[in-house]
């Protein structure tokens, strides 16, 4: 279906090719997972499939890419619309119309499909994706998962032979991600569509994938079944790492497979993992009865929460459960209609924003909103000035958080992880003792997440209270001591990480699902194992 023959690609002005001499062929009705670190060339490889690379991005392409026998050289991406459906990372940015039904029909209108056929296909697609009840809704009012499904639907109506998705679940909560992935699996099974998808959080996709392409970043591609490819990749989902640790062969790809092999390992482990968490200090921020409402909608419904020194608190819950609103309210910049927040004897909302940020720092969901200068050095200098800190303190922080970022780089050219580190450094230069992070793991690959975990841990070790709102269970299991789960603006569970994460299947990590007994992460297991052997 898709044939790449000796494909190499250079972006303008860059000597090193992003892709180098890649030859592969993807057959019909395969679900292919494309993995690799940020910037390794995943999106570029995806773009070559419908000609966006190089027709839209510019750059130099050698070799040939053909889809269903048609070479992408022969025309611009629009001439491939009926063959290749492309779904981007942010579905909202790709929407042309504003209601679900019209969005689904848009592509067909461009192809000149006859109206009766269009009508029929729209109905079929609505049913296929389970969004029939949303047909007249405005796209902007949909939740992330719904938007992503509409985006998939909007290319499906053109009956493409190939569906290409770039990180379709990165912004979604676990349940919504499951929905989208299940939908994709159904397409492969029912319609025989070939699906190529790039994803950082492989653990979600691997159970569905027939085949895996790994882009290590040197221009090459490793190709094979997920089990083959994952044997030697530097980063892998927890299930694979556990398999490697335990020496399982073949590597398990699903929780079910892993469980079958887990018996011996389980017997070698102690009864209970050692959850001796760091000694938690005094409360730095105490709040009670916090209420946030937007008109009629109540976002936060009377939440009482204390943030303690040296504690990393994770806030979980589906999209729209009030996590962000709570963080903004605690920081004092967001709206708060009721309740009290006390930091250091003061209410940050009552203080001017320059003073409030010295008490509580917040890294917002779109961290880049805080950046507006041309170079990293400028940003740091401005941050020192704004925070009234010693000149160079932001730079020092940044060097500690993410070493090796050139000072003359443009903040927008940094990778997601580096940009996050920069914003964190900017916010930390005001030296707040309470640090709030809103969805920092979004769009980070395993490596970036690991370094974020390191950063967060060191912040807490220095005596700060750190709070992270996130969907990422594995990340929470790695860093957090305490987890609260929010739903409809209320805290529905609150407790030590192990308790909360093992308590419900929705929030269980892969390791917990495989081993049970309170085990959460591979590193815990790894730490426990030698002791047993000894």
């Amino acid at each position, binding site marked *: 279906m898709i044939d790449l023959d000796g494909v190499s690609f250079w972006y303008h002005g860059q000597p090193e090719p992003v892709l180098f001499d890649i030859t592969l062929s993807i057959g019909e009705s395969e679900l292919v997972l494309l993995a690799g670190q940020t910037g390794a060339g995943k999106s570029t490889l995806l773009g070559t499939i419908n000609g*966006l690379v190089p027709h*839209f991005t510019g750059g130099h392409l050698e070799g040939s890419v053909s889809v269903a026998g048609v070479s992408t050289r022969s025309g611009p*991406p*629009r*001439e*491939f*619309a*009926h063959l*290749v459906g*492309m779904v*981007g990372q*942010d579905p909202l*940015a*790709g*929407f*042309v119309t*504003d209601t679900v039904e*019209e969005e689904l*029909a*848009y*592509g067909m*209108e*461009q*192809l*000149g499909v*006859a*109206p009766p056929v*269009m*009508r029929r296909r729209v109905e079929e697609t609505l049913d296929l994706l389970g969004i029939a*009840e*949303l*047909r*007249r*809704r405005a796209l902007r*009012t949909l*939740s992330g998962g*719904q938007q992503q499904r509409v985006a998939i639907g*909007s*290319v499906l109506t*053109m009956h493409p032979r190939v569906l290409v998705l770039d990180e379709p679940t990165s912004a979604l909560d676990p349940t919504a991600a499951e929905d989208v992935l299940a939908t994709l699996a159904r397409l492969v099974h029912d319609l025989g569509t070939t699906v190529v998808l790039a994803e950082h959080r492989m653990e979600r996709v691997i159970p569905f994938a027939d085949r895996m392409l790994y882009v290590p970043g040197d221009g090459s591609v490793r190709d094979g079944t997920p089990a083959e490819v994952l044997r030697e990749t530097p980063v892998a989902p927890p299930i694979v790492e556990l398999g490697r640790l335990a020496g399982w062969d073949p590597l398990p790809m699903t929780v079910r497979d892993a469980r079958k092999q887990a018996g011996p390992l389980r017997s070698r482990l102690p009864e209970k993992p050692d959850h001796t968490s760091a000694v938690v200090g005094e409360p730095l921020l105490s709040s009670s009865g916090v209420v946030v409402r937007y008109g009629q*909608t109540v976002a936060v419904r009377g939440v009482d929460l204390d943030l303690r020194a040296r504690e990393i608190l994770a806030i979980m819950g589906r999209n*729209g459960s009030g996590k962000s609103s709570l963080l903004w309210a605690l*920081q004092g*910049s*967001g709206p708060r209609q009721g309740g009290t927040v006390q930091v250091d004897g003061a209410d940050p909302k009552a203080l*001017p*924003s*320059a003073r409030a*940020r010295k008490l509580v720092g917040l890294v*917002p969901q779109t961290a*880049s*909103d*805080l950046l*507006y200068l041309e170079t990293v050095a400028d940003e740091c200098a401005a941050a020192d000035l*704004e*925070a009234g800190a010693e000149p160079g303190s932001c730079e020092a922080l940044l060097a500690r958080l993410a070493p090796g970022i050139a000072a003359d780089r443009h903040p*927008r050219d940094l990778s997601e992880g580096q940009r996050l580190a920069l914003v964190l450094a*900017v*916010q930390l230069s*005001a030296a707040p003792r309470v640090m709030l992070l809103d969805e920092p793991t979004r769009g980070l690959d395993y490596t970036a997440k690991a370094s974020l975990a390191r950063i967060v841990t060191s912040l807490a070790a220095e005596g700060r209270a750190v709070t992270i709102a996130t969907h990422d269970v594995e990340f929470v299991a790695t860093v957090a001591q305490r987890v609260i789960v929010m739903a409809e603006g209320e805290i529905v569970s609150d407790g030590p990480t192990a308790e909360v994460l093992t308590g419900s299947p929705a929030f269980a990590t892969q390791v917990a699902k495989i081993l049970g007994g309170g085990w959460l992460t591979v590193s815990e297991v790894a730490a426990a194992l030698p002791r047993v052997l000894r």
Partner: protein
Amino acid sequence: MAGATYFLPRDLHPGAWWLWALGLAVGASRTTNPWLLLTILAVACYVVVARRTDAPWAMAFRMYLYLGALIVTFRVLFRIIFGGAEGSTIILRLPEIPLPAWAAGIRLLGDVSAESVLGGLYDGLRLATMVICLGAANALANPKRLLKAMPSALYEVGTAVIVAMSVFPQLAESVVRVRQARKLRGGHGGKRFHALRAVVIPVLADALDRSLRLAASMDSRGYGRAGVVAARTRLVTGTLMIVGLIGVCVGVYATLDGSTPRYLAAPVLFSGVVVALIGFRTAGARVKRSRYRPERWQLAEVVVAASGIGVAVAMFATSSVDPTNLNPSLVTLSWPMLSWLPLGGVLLGLVPAFLTPLPQPELERVPA
């Protein structure tokens, strides 16, 4: 005739509503009689309330009413402030403010006569009614569907407008978000320009990112798959359209300006329209696009359009029978008089409130 399906809820063709509203507006433009204007207003308001949906543009009708009230107020105030002494019934004596010589001819305050205030009121009422009629069209006709109903030669323009319309709320959203984020970084410190830049740069960068992503998305979804057109055909279409439009312009000018030779009026206008239509057709013929749920012009649309056109025709017809009452004299103060024909004509505009299907209810409006 499909009597049973006639009243099934559906959205009418936006063009029908526009014709109706323009008919009312043209009717209003023919008169300054407050009775007629008020009746037109009441008719428009009732039809809007009876047949609008819950869409945001429909709910914006209230804004047009406020605008109308503002127009009337301003017209009257202007009459009072500048030269309100037209006529002899002085109702208010204000001290006149002497102005320097260079402002000769402008009069500030002074005596205010009932005639000039009434003149301002009638005039303002007429303008307000016309504005509110257009507001009614806006409330009843989905603007996006109107764009969709445009000839396919204008498809690209329509798409651009639709995209622009969805960009603005996004831009506003970004500004709010970035300004909030700005507070996180210490807020209002620094110079003004600095602060402005701190908002503008992230917003623009965001908008640029978005538009690139939108362009990529549109490209990969087949936007602009027009097929190849021969240069000759393109030349012919372009010439036809330009010649046609020039003809329309000349024709309209000649029709409106009485002193231009008559052969430049109707004949040129007509042939201009024909040529332009041929141009549109040939331009549209090359476009291989189709429309999802194309708007259909059915009986109900005809009823709506006819009712609006009926109002305009009635007002034109009565102006040859009863011109005195369409523009009540202000020389001698009296109640404006009214005859039956224009009143009946205006009430014709009420037909769509009863003889059209209800709009389709929006299924789920509650935001997620």
